[in-house]
């Protein structure tokens, strides 16, 4: 009997990705045997994915990589072949030239007619040949398009989807110029009010059920379904139900045609006029990636931008519609000193001189967790020079299981990591109030918050020697400012937010600021330079990289490395 202890096996290396060799339009390629499905679970690779890997595209309507597969539109039918197997030896039968003999797929009851498989749901197998460009495949697509169009109203000139419509695009690429259809069309409900934010045109609908699947399987709401039968099938909200969950507008994005439209956007703008800018939603701490659609300095819509580390392909309705305020007519547009219009040069010099003359400990800073990390960093640097108390304002609401965070500030982590408030936000506000009351604090810098709502009332602010306020919209605090510095909405500047999970993400500028307003980081940098803190940069890139060198959590992160999807840092 021995007591030999067998050594624990060395940790296994990650298993090599198993590959399958197939042919796509005659070209040999290797594709992974398994790929993630809509939930990220590995499942056998489909023909559609294989063609994509081969650099091709299979047109499709109902298929969406983030939704369960439905297979109903039939647009992705692809002719294919499989290696012929000898039933006795179970080995491939070879042609005379040694290549495997391929059995082209045909209708079992009509062997002269090719049979397609839906590429979205059919797994590939070794040696399979896909013919996504064959005449038979093209004919199948043409036929599906013809069917989809016979009852379609063909009202592109007045349809909001025009320009981003898969029916239009595929008709150009795969359709026929003329229709044979001479029968009366099916008529269905028009301009159906599905809910507070959605209008449905059932005649334009191609019944792909993306909206139903998203609503049921992603948003967890059974509001949508199909009524009637056959060609009369009609998408509808359940009787007595409003389609009113907080994610309804995603169905407008998902709708490949002009059936579902956003009440907010419809009839406002032709999509091909829109400039697209990569940005973030700042309505909560999730930091959904978005694309801003703007034209001539006016924002027309927010749309979600895919980022699997953050928001997948979705965003909530509340965040999506939270842009109208940017164009408000009462935006702060002028630099004011004691209520009189001034210039940036004068105001920045005034702030610098007042701060230089302020004794240590007589300054306090209230920053906002809606500011960019760079701005928070600069404010923190300015505060540090004066030994100032810094704090910010928490903003909380109800979260949900999908995207909405309880933290309604977009950059609470930025506040924490830059040291504006290391722990809980808002706990030092009473200390600031007490300092002002006692006359210790004589100078207050307020950025982006109406502090009169949070215990620093007008009477208290009236006791200050210097009240520097920067904001975007007027409020009780801006009304009391000695020096008022008009700032920017985030869509008017560049910067980063760090979301609740520590994702550092940057956003780009979509539109110009209003009037004299400037990005806060620019004038904060000028103030900081005047004070002799934080110098050596002139761009947002330089500022970010400098900040990353000083903030421990951001060590090693660079602006250029953030890319479009950001990077995650430990928080």
């Amino acid at each position, binding site marked *: 009997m021995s007591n030999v202890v067998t050594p624990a096996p060395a940790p296994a290396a990650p298993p090599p990705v198993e590959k399958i060799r197939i042919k796509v339009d005659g070209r040999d390629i290797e594709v992974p045997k398994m790929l993630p499905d809509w939930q990220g679970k590995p499942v056998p690779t489909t023909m559609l994915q294989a063609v994509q890997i081969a650099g091709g595209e299979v047109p499709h309507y109902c298929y969406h990589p983030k939704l369960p597969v439905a297979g*109903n539109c039939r*647009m992705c039918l692809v002719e294919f072949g499989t290696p012929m197997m000898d039933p006795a030896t179970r080995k491939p039968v070879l042609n005379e030239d040694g290549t495997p003999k391929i059995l082209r797929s045909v209708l079992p009851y009509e062997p002269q007619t090719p049979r397609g498989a839906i590429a979205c*749901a059919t797994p590939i197998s070794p040696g399979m040949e896909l013919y996504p460009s064959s005449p038979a495949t093209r004919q199948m697509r043409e036929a599906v398009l013809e069917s989809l169009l016979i009852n379609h109203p063909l009202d592109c000139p007045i349809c909001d989807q025009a320009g981003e419509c898969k029916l239009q695009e595929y008709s150009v690429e795969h359709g026929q110029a003329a229709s044979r*259809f001479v029968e009366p069309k099916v008529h269905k409900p028009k301009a159906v009010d599905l809910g507070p934010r959605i209008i449905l045109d059932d005649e334009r609908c191609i*019944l792909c059920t993306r909206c139903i699947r998203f609503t049921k399987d992603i948003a967890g709401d059974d509001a949508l379904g199909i009524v009637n039968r*056959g060609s*009369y099938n009609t998408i509808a909200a359940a009787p007595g139900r409003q389609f009113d969950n907080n994610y309804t507008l995603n169905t407008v994005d998902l709708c490949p045609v002009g059936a579902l439209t956003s009440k907010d956007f419809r009839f406002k703008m032709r999509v091909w006029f829109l400039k697209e800018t990569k940005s973030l939603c700042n309505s909560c701490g999730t930091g959904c990636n978005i694309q801003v659609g703007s034209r001539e300095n006016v924002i027309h819509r927010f749309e979600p931008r895919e980022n699997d580390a953050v928001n997948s392909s979705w965003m909530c309705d509340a965040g999506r519609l939270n842009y109208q305020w940017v164009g408000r007519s009462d935006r702060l547009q002028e630099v004011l000193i004691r209520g009189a219009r001034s210039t940036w040069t004068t105001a920045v010099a005034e702030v610098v001189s007042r701060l230089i003359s302020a004794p240590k400990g007589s300054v306090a800073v209230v920053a906002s967790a809606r500011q960019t990390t760079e701005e928070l960093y600069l404010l923190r640097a300015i505060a540090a020079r004066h030994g100032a108390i810094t704090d910010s304002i928490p903003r909380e609401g109800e979260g949900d299981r999908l995207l909405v965070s309880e933290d309604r500030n977009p950059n609470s982590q930025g506040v924490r990591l830059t040291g504006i408030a290391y722990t809980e936000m808002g706990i030092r506000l009473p200390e600031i109030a007490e300092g002002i009351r006692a006359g210790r604090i004589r100078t207050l810098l307020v950025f982006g918050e109406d502090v009169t709502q949070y215990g620093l009332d007008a009477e208290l602010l009236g006791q200050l020697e210097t009240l520097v306020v920067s904001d975007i919209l007027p409020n009780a605090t801006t009304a009391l400012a000695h020096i008022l510095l008009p700032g920017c909405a985030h869509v008017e500047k560049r910067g980063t937010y760090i979301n609740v999970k520590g994702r550092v993400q940057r956003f780009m500028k979509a539109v110009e600021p209003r009037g004299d307003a400037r990005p806060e980081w620019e004038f904060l940098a000028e103030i900081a330079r005047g004070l002799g803190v934080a110098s050596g940069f002139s761009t947002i890139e330089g500022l970010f990289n400098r900040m990353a060198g000083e903030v421990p959590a951001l060590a090693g992160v660079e602006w250029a490395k953030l890319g479009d999807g950001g990077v995650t840092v430990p928080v």
Partner: protein
Amino acid sequence: MPQEYRLILKHADQPGYTPDIECYLRHGGYAALRKALATAPRELPDGKKLGPQEVIRDEVLKSGLRGRGGAGFSAGLKWSFVDRRSGKPIYLICNADESEPGTFKDRQILHKDPHQLIEGMIISCWANDVRLAYIYIRGEMPQGARLLNQALREARAKGFLGKNILGTGIDIDIHVHRGAGAYICGEETGLIESLEGKRAYPRIKPPYFPAVLGLYMCPTIVNNVETLCHVKHIVELGGAEYAKLGTPNNTGTRIVSLSGDVKNPGYFEVEVGKVTLGEIIHHENFGGGLRPGRSLRAIIPGGSSSKVLKAGEKFKLRKKGADGQMTQVEADLLDLPYDFDSLQQAGTMSGSGAVIVMDDTRDVVDVLANVSEFYAHESCGQCTPCREGALWMSKALHRMTTGGGRAEDADYLLHIAQNIQGRTICAFGEAAAWPVLSFVKKFKDDFVTRGKADESARASGVVPTAHH
């Protein structure tokens, strides 16, 4: 002399035979179940050992039983595909959604001999480790549902069903679920969706093969009413003995529903392949021939979705001779044996066993318009080719029957139908396309003539121009 062979309908129409369990027991009912439960394990010549349930499954496979619902697929093979290692429960569903136009065979069983179905189902459940089975019955058969529920109560009271059946320690139960009136619920995956309480949209295959991912994503067997009744008789006779009924590869009996222009429409149970289409129509034991002065125009041989056969058509059939050699023989339409393989070789199918006869008074354009309207009405609308194509064909045919025909409509119809078959989620696409493809191809002159007549009538102002 061609005659009926009543196996399934042996008692159904006997005077005094009632659907209650006492009557069934008096006629030897549930003996097959007792026999099945007492099956002994068997050792095969190759040394492989079969448990009692495997023996029953093996008998069903050996019997050559083919599904009586429409596709004619081997029942034993279907059972063999069931995933028995998933750890999930296995379900059995009896498809009693008999809806194929022209078909009225299952309702004879349901209304007159429900216990035969229940016995077949209990045996099938036991043989496949099924603990819970459903009978999905067509909504339009309320009487059938009442009778089945009554029969299930009786079977439970006698210990054939429910907890610890016949003292074996095994629980098996069956529930009746009524459909709400949709043809598509007869498609097995549409049926499963409907049974789950959802809209009866057929599932895509792959991945949702019922044998693996069926009801509630569990392995599921879906069999037709008549098919499940045959299981009882296979147990009684033994698979090999059962296979002697009918003809090779087309074993057993099946119930033919005969309708249309014959003197004596009705249902007839025959040995598969032992009678010809001509005999079914003309023989005095069956249809009794056409009405005086009429001649045959066409036959729809297997329910309205099967391809029409034209009077006078000839077919080449492959026959296996006594020496095992395949030979080709020519057969006239009326000499086609009524079985699965012959009709398939004739380019159509025996489908649900519904033979619809049309004589020379029938206008094929009107007939096809009628058939096509049914499929347009019943298309579930899930997938594009069928949803749009079925109504398109129906509208075109309606136009043709109301003075709006065009000479080009024949090709127009073929074009639409060609783009449906083989491109849909389920076989409904074929069901909608095949009547159009076969009628228009085989009676093209009728369609072109009708279209031309309409065109010239419009040109001369006789009828208003149809909507374009």
